[in-house]
Structures are given as structure tokens and as C-alpha cells.
């Protein structure tokens, strides 16, 4: 590769046409032999080294979705006309856009930055935030919130001490400096992520429906403008080398391929873009992320109706020695590309000047159907843009249900020793509360600014993050991200639907009506038929689940090759659900405050401990079948929670998920330090289970709510009328120190606090 790219003479189209037999480094660039042959056929000669660079990054797994694309038709097949009505922009653009009413549109999307964050935790995580924020900006929206679903290896593994603090500081360092509130996300630990931490980032943006912008270059003679940071040597080959290759033990270090972020430049770029949109001087816009200029030029041209001519030597450089191939591949951050009508160019440049943002006209939209790139007058790229951006290879990878699955599903939790006394239940509650996945995450989330912009109505540790969009009316959105990879390992179809159900439930618990879905699908190697089977099952689960719930998938991201050697991570389809509220002042928080309010348990509890946190923490056990998915029950529960919020029937609500009722009760008590008395014998008898199962089962479609006594009759009447299973299980009581599970055990607030709060500081320090 070096031999080719470092040649002093530039490899022009003319030169390529006369030297068909030059040996090209397609394999080093991550291309397969048949892919290289295909490129030769498309361009009708050997590609120039610049063309080869472009094809190699754009045809990488990360950019082309070549292994996953064939399964995407499941989205379309499961999207009804009714679901499409709310969609202003669907899958395929930088991010999907949904109509939230009153002239407002919201766009949201999640993306992975897993591999870079393992190599260089701080910059990997930081640039993950930066990339997703630019995706949202390029739809014409002002970014209004971020959240970060994070997954790490064992909490006590020495490498987790390297990765986690760096990732958290990177997310905070970048997001805080952008002035975007971080309102939620997840922090999950599991040995399966030891060599493949998952760093996913989600961003939400808002705009008036009339302000939507799309990534396309049309209008012959329109100028193509690159603006933002200068282009440097960082992140070259990041896409093809990092994101599309499995980490092998003992391989060479890959640090130079990780990009370096400058959040200040991005903050200025956001404000500058919003001013450009307001002035109406942008015809088309695209952010520069993975695959840099290769991606931006080919996608803009491919989405437009003509060709494009670019003078690559005009690109402002941080490092003057960069070769054209490197400039095309560089993933330098904080850059955008706009298509501007020549008559508006002066106005455009005045705005970029005001923000001290460097802007350079690189070329223009042409009437041909070719993307032509020159370097000091020599043509170095001459290709059909669609062939680069949208007509990459597609693989029908073999898939096969893994052979281990039968034995894994056979091995349920029925035979595990269970606590039978009050003292033993109490001990298990405290053990779970202190466990890595259920403990207090303030050590992480306090490093994020959740207040900036002044519109945050709820943030972690509440069930969903809630932000106001319209300051006049209070209209706003709630977002939650969820996934239990352990469930997905046991059954990827059900596991994906459980992630969807939990995220849906969290949004409804906050009082918002679920509206749309985004996903971030983290899997092992697509070349492993077992992984590919998991992947297809997960997509099918999400698509069919969304159809049942009537909420569309608006976009998402696929991250493959999350495996070390032959061992893949648990399938981890992270689901983000977005909901809308007329007035976010009515949102329902997760903890109770008011003594005397009555605690109701909504939903039915079954003996469903397989894959749950009790089995994980107490027995280190994973096996059996995950909890039953009941989306109709989720919908009913969601309606009850949304109506109760709107009509002021509940003052607090908390969804039941990891760790079951026991953890939900403890968290709702800890939130504001107000105690509760609960009695579980009746509800256990009703459901035909023991108190242990009532406390620790992870059955779905359940929540607890705190109901003011004055609203109790209205609330129970509503539940009865709609057929929502409900049981009065306790009362909020400031005379009770902590939690009193009557007839079983009591545990003081101080004990709950100590168990919950000490875990992360004990590992990472104050």
C-alpha cells in the first residue's frame, strides 16, 4: 500500500488507462478479489489509486452495509401506511425525521463507535458523539440532547479501568463542550464485552417541519463548499481498517487510525450551520464522517440528479504533505459539505466568516453523470457516483442457528438454589443492588451536563430522558435506549423484541406516547453463520415488533465484527424509542416523594428468572428462555401510564426490568430518600408464585406507580375498565426508614444507599 500511495507522481486516470497491469494493494485496503475485479469492470480499466481508496472505504462493511443490506427489506415489509404517516423522512437519509405535531419535527439516530473506543477510549468515544451530532445537524435540525448506551467487560478486569474512565471522559468532554444535555443511556458490564466494548451514541434534534434539509447535490452550476476544520492525517483508513476487521490477539497497534476530536470547532459549526439554514442559503448538505470526502462527494452526487466536479487540491490541509488518496480517505472531524446556489454564495461565506469557520469552494454540480476529481488539473477520479456510494457489493451471508443454543436453552434457572427466608431475600436484594449492572451510575452520569439548554425535564436515573422542544407550549420528547444482551443471547428474536418492549415501556412510563424507533445493532462477525443467524433473527424481531406496536423504525446503524478471535459478543441490538408529550411539565418521575400515596403494581408476574440479573449476580448463570414477550400487554400498559400522566393520576412511575420488582422498589425509594411499606403475599398468591419470584422475576409489561389517595378510585376504575391487571401492594411512608417488605424483611435507607452507591467509586475512586 505504501509503495503505491507514496509514489511522488500522481496516479491519473490517463496513466491508469495505459498501465493496466500495475499491481494494486486492494487486499491491504480490505477489498476482496472479486470486489476489486468488480471495480475494474465499473471503471472500464484499472482504478487509479485515488479511485481505489474511495471504493475501498465506501465498500467497507461500515459504509456499505454489504452483509446486512439484504435483511433490510424486513423493515419495509413490516412498515404499514399508518406507520409511514408520521415519518417525514425515512431510512436512508442521514437520520429519519418524525412529525411530533404543531409544526415540529424531530430527528434522532444512534451510531456505534465501538472499535475506535477500544483502541483509544477518550478520542473514540468523543468522536462518536461528534459524528452522530453532525448527522443530526445535516438534516437541518438543532441538536437538543444526546445519550450514550455503553457496554464494558468485567467491572473488576484491569482493562476496564483503562477503557471505562476514558470513554466516559470522552463522551463528557465532547458533549459537555458542545452544550448538549446528556439525558440517559446505559452502562452495562458483561465479560463478553471485555475485548469489544460497545460505545453507542444517540442524538436527538428538533426543527420546524419546513426546515428539513437533505443530502443531495442538484442544480447544475451550484457550488460545492467544504467548511469547518482543515483536513489532516487522522483517521485515514479508519473505516476500512478499524470498523471492518476483527481484533486479533497480537496484531499491530492501530492507534493512528483513530480520529481526534475538537468539540469547540463542532460547537461553532453547529451555530454556523443553524445560521446558514435560517438564511436559506443551503441547497443540500452532508456531514463528513466515516470515509470523509469520499463519502460526502459520492453520496451528495449520487443522491442528486447530475454529476460533480471537484478540485481536490483546494482542500485546506493541516498537513501539506498529504497525498490526494489520503485527503479522500481522511476522517478528520468537524467538517461539512454544502451545495450552494452561486447567487447565495456570498451570503453563505459571510455567515461562515462571522463564525470564523473556514469555507472553501471545491467545485460544482455538473450536468454529466460522473464524479470527476482533479488534482492540480490532472483527473484522478472519474467514476459513476452511484457505484461508489450505493451500488457496493451485497452479500447473502450463510446463516445457521448455532448448535450450542439447544443446550443453552435447556439449562434454565429452575434447579438453582433460591432464598426461602426473609433474611435471605434481604441479602439477595442488597447483593443485586450493589452489582455492577444495577448499582448507582452517578460516577458516570455526573460527568455529563444534563442541564444545559434549560429544557431537561427528566434525565438519568429516571426511566427516560425528557426534553422540551417548544418553549411556548411545553411540547417535547422522551427517549430511552435499552437492550439486554443476555436475553438476546438466549433468543435473539425475543431478545430484540424485549429490548424494544423495555424501551417502549420506559418512554410510556415517563408519560410520553411512543412514536418512533432507532436501532444500533451490535454483533460479532458476519462471516460466522451463527452470528448472521442472530442478526437476522434480531432484525425480524424488531421489524415485526414495531409493526405490532405501530411505531416505525426511522433509521439505525449496524456494527459487525465485535468479536475477539472466534468469540463474539452477545447479540446486542440496542433499541431507542422516542415518544412525544404535549407538555413535558406533566412528565412522570421515577421516584416517589409524597407520604401516604398508594403503590400499585401493574401487570402479571410469572416465574421468569432465566437470563435475569438474579441468576447472573447470585449464581453467575446464563441459560434457559428469556421472559415471554407480550406486546399487546405493553401497549395497554403504555396507554394506562400515558393517560395517568396526562390526567394527573400518578405522581411517580417506574418500569420493572433488570432485577425485577425488588430493584424497582429500592430505586423508587432511593430516588428521593422516602421510604415505603409493601405487602406481596396477596399479589404472589394471585399470580401463583412465591414472594421470591414476585421480587426477582423479570416478567415484562409491568410497572409500579405511586397514586395520590384522592385519585385512587379514578386510577383503579381506569385500570378495571381497560382490563389492566393491577394490585395495591404498598404505601409511600416517611415513617418507614427505607423499605419494609411486610412479613419478610426491612432494610434501612442507609443500607440501601451504601449498597447502591459504593460500587463504582470503590473501583474508580471518588
Amino acid at each position, binding site marked *: 500500500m505504501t509503495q503505491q500511495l507514496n509514489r511522488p507522481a500522481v496516479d491519473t486516470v490517463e496513466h491508469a488507462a495505459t498501465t493496466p497491469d500495475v499491481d494494486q494493494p486492494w487486499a491491504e485496503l480490505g477489498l476482496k478479489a472479486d470486489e476489486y475485479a468488480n471495480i475494474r469492470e465499473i471503471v472500464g480499466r484499472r482504478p487509479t489509486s485515488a479511485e481505489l481508496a474511495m471504493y475501498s472505504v465506501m465498500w467497507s462493511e461500515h459504509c456499505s452495509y454489504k452483509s446486512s443490506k439484504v435483511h433490510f427489506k424486513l423493515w419495509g415489509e413490516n412498515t404499514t401506511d399508518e406507520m409511514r404517516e408520521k415519518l417525514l423522512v425515512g431510512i436512508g437519509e442521514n437520520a429519519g425525521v418524525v412529525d411530533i405535531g404543531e409544526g415540529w419535527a424531530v430527528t434522532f439516530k444512534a451510531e456505534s463507535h465501538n472499535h475506535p473506543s477500544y483502541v483509544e477510549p477518550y478520542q473514540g468515544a468523543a468522536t462518536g458523539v461528534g459524528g452522530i451530532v453532525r448527522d443530526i445537524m445535516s438534516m437541518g435540525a438543532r441538536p437538543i440532547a444526546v445519550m450514550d448506551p455503553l457496554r464494558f467487560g468485567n467491572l473488576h478486569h484491569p482493562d476496564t479501568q483503562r477503557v471505562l474512565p476514558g470513554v466516559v471522559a470522552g463522551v463528557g468532554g465532547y458533549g459537555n463542550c458542545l452544550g448538549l444535555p446528556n439525558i440517559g443511556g446505559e452502562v452495562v458490564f458483561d465479560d463478553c464485552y471485555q475485548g469489544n466494548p460497545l460505545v453507542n451514541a444517540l442524538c436527538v434534534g428538533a426543527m420546524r417541519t419546513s426546515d428539513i434539509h437533505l443530502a443531495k447535490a442538484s442544480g447544475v452550476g451550484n457550488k460545492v463548499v467544504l467548511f469547518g476544520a482543515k483536513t489532516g492525517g487522522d483517521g485515514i483508513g479508519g473505516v476500512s481498517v478499524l470498523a471492518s476487521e476483527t481484533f486479533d490477539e497480537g496484531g499491530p497497534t492501530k492507534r493512528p487510525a483513530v480520529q481526534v476530536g475538537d*468539540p*469547540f470547532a463542532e460547537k*461553532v459549526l453547529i451555530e454556523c450551520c443553524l445560521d446558514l439554514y435560517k438564511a436559506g442559503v443551503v441547497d443540500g448538505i452532508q456531514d463528513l464522517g466515516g470515509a470523509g470526502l469520499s463519502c460526502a462527494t459520492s453520496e451528495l452526487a449520487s443522491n442528486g440528479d447530475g454529476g460533480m466536479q471537484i478540485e481536490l487540491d483546494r482542500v485546506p490541509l493541516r498537513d501539506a504533505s498529504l497525498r490526494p488518496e489520503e485527503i479522500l480517505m481522511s476522517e478528520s472531524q468537524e467538517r461539512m459539505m454544502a451545495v450552494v446556489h452561486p447567487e447565495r454564495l456570498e451570503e453563505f461565506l459571510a455567515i461562515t466568516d462571522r463564525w470564523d469557520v473556514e469555507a472553501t469552494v471545491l467545485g460544482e454540480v455538473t450536468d454529466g453523470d460522473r464524479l470527476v476529481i482533479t488534482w492540480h488539473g490532472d483527473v484522478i477520479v472519474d467514476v459513476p457516483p452511484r457505484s461508489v456510494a450505493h451500488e457496493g457489493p451485497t452479500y447473502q451471508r450463510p446463516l445457521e442457528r448455532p448448535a450450542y443454543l439447544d443446550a443453552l436453552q435447556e439449562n434454565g434457572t429452575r434447579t438453582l438454589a433460591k432464598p426461602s427466608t426473609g433474611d435471605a431475600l434481604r441479602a439477595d436484594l442488597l447483593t443485586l443492588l450493589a452489582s455492577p449492572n444495577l448499582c448507582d451510575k452517578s460516577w458516570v452520569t*455526573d460527568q455529563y451536563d444534563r442541564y*444545559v439548554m*434549560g429544557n431537561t425535564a427528566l434525565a438519568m436515573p429516571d426511566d427516560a430522558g425528557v426534553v422540551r422542544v417548544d418553549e411556548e407550549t411545553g411540547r417535547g420528547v422522551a427517549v430511552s435506549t435499552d437492550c439486554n444482551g443476555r436475553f438476546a443471547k438466549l433468543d435473539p428474536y425475543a431478545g430484540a423484541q424485549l429490548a424494544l418492549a423495555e424501551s417502549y415501556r420506559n418512554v410510556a412510563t415517563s408519560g410520553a406516547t411512543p412514536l418512533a424507533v432507532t436501532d444500533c445493532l451490535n454483533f460479532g462477525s458476519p462471516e460466522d453463520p451463527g452470528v448472521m443467524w442472530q442478526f437476522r433473527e434480531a432484525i425480524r424481531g424488531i421489524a415485526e415488533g414495531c409493526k405490532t406496536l405501530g411505531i416505525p423504525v426511522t433509521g439505525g446503524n449496524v456494527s459487525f465484527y465485535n468479536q475477539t478471535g472466534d468469540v463474539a459478543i452477545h447479540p446486542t441490538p440496542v433499541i431507542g424509542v422516542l415518544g412525544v408529550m404535549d407538555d413535558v411539565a406533566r412528565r412522570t418521575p421515577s421516584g416517589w416523594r409524597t407520604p401516604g400515596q398508594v403503590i400499585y403494581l401493574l401487570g402479571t408476574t410469572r416465574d421468569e428468572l432465566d437470563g435475569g440479573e438474579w441468576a447472573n449476580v447470585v449464581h453467575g448463570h446464563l441459560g434457559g428462555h428469556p421472559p415471554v414477550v407480550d406486546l399487546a400487554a405493553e401497549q395497554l400498559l403504555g396507554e394506562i401510564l400515558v393517560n395517568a400522566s396526562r390526567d394527573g393520576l400518578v405522581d411517580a412511575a417506574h418500569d420493572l426490568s433488570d432485577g425485577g420488582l425488588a430493584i424497582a422498589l429500592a430505586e423508587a425509594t432511593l430516588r428521593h430518600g422516602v421510604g415505603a411499606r409493601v405487602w406481596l403475599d396477596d399479589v404472589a398468591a394471585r399470580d401463583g408464585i412465591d414472594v421470591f419470584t414476585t421480587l426477582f422475576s423479570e416478567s415484562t409489561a409491568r410497572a409500579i406507580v405511586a397514586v395520590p389517595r384522592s385519585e385512587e378510585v379514578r386510577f383503579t376504575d381506569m385500570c378495571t375498565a381497560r382490563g389492566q391487571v393491577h394490585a395495591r401492594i404498598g404505601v409511600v411512608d416517611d415513617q418507614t426508614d427505607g423499605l419494609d417488605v411486610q412479613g419478610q424483611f426491612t432494610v434501612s435507607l442507609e443500607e440501601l444507599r451504601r449498597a447502591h452507591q459504593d460500587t463504582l467509586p470503590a473501583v474508580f475512586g471518588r
Partner: protein
Amino acid sequence: MKVGVVTFPGSLDDRDALRAVRAVGAEPVSLWHGDADLKGVDAVILPGGFSYGDYLRCGAIARFAPVMDALVPAAQGGLPVLGICNGFQVLCESHLLPGALIRNDHRKFNCVDQRLVVENASTAWTSDFEAGQEITIVLKNGEGGYVADEATLDRLEGEGQVVFRYAASNPNGSYRDIAGVTNERGNVVGLMPHPEHCIEDGYGPSLDGLPFFTSVLRQAVSA
């Protein structure tokens, strides 16, 4: 009454400060870092954020912005000025306030609902509080450790120039638990916590930020 809020490149809480000004019935005015023009405002807020990225010392570049050429003499002449977080850092760098802000002692960014004690309720920005009052204000920063030499600290204590002290626990290693200070005249106040995030029910941990803005309004009305 008109209250100006300066936007530097990298300012983040400027819109929040404008909202807070509006919330108490004053007229918010946006001021631009590049213009040495205070547009006739009756008070100025330097908002939170990371001016110029704060890649050097926090506030060290903002100090040289053209708007500061107008602001510094005006503040020395008695114009009420409130510096919040990065604004506090800018005021220290500009020598309108004594001392400096350094990296938190635990070396992390920290976002918490912080308890404070109001030590001085007679400045332009705190007259609607009572001395000794405990309030809760959002605190969020990476470099909020207040430091000064012993003589300066003694003088500040002696002259009543310590305006806010951290209560319950010291979140960042600030000397003598100092969260905010004022100049000798009491018109320039800087603090690390963010009163503009505590002005609306449902969008912050308290309403304890409102008296900052009503104080300066009352002062202008009575002046």
C-alpha cells in the same frame, strides 16, 4: 431594564441566561464577543461554556475579546456584572475579580445539584437573598476549584467578598469552600454554580436561581 448576555465562540449557557433575564421581566439583549459595544444595557451576564474551547487556561482568550474592552471599564465604573462558571473564569482572568479557577481536585467534570450558603446578601446580584440562607443551585464544571493566596483569601473573608460557600461537601477542592466572590464595590459577582438553570419549575432542581436576577432588577429600578 436591559440585561446583556455575551456570546463568545463556545459559550453554551447564553440562551439559558437570556431566558432567565426574560423570566424576571427584564429585557434580554444579546451581545457579541467581536463587538466592543454594550448596546446601552444596565447589567451584563457572562454565561457558562467553553469560550474558544478553553484549550488554554479557561477564560484566558475570552479576556482579550473586543467586548471586554467595553465591559472592563464599565464594570470598574459600577455596571452590575455576573459571571457564571466560564464567565467567572473570564472575570478572574480579566482581574475584575481576585483569584483563579483550577481543575477540580478529583480531576473529573462534575454535574450535581449543589447546596450553597449565601454569605453576602448585599451585592448587586444577591440582595434578594438573606445572609446565611441555604440554596440549591446546579453545579457543572471540570475546572471549578477556587484558589488564591492566603493573604487574598483572608482579605476576601474580612471584607465580606465571599458571596457563596459550598455547603454539605466541597465538590471540587475550592479553598475555604468558596463558590463565588464579589469585587470590593459589590457590583461584579462570579460563581461556579449555574443560577440560570434554577428558574423554572420542572426544569431544574430548584427555583433558587431567580433571586439573582430579581436582585439586579430591583437595584436598577431603585437606582
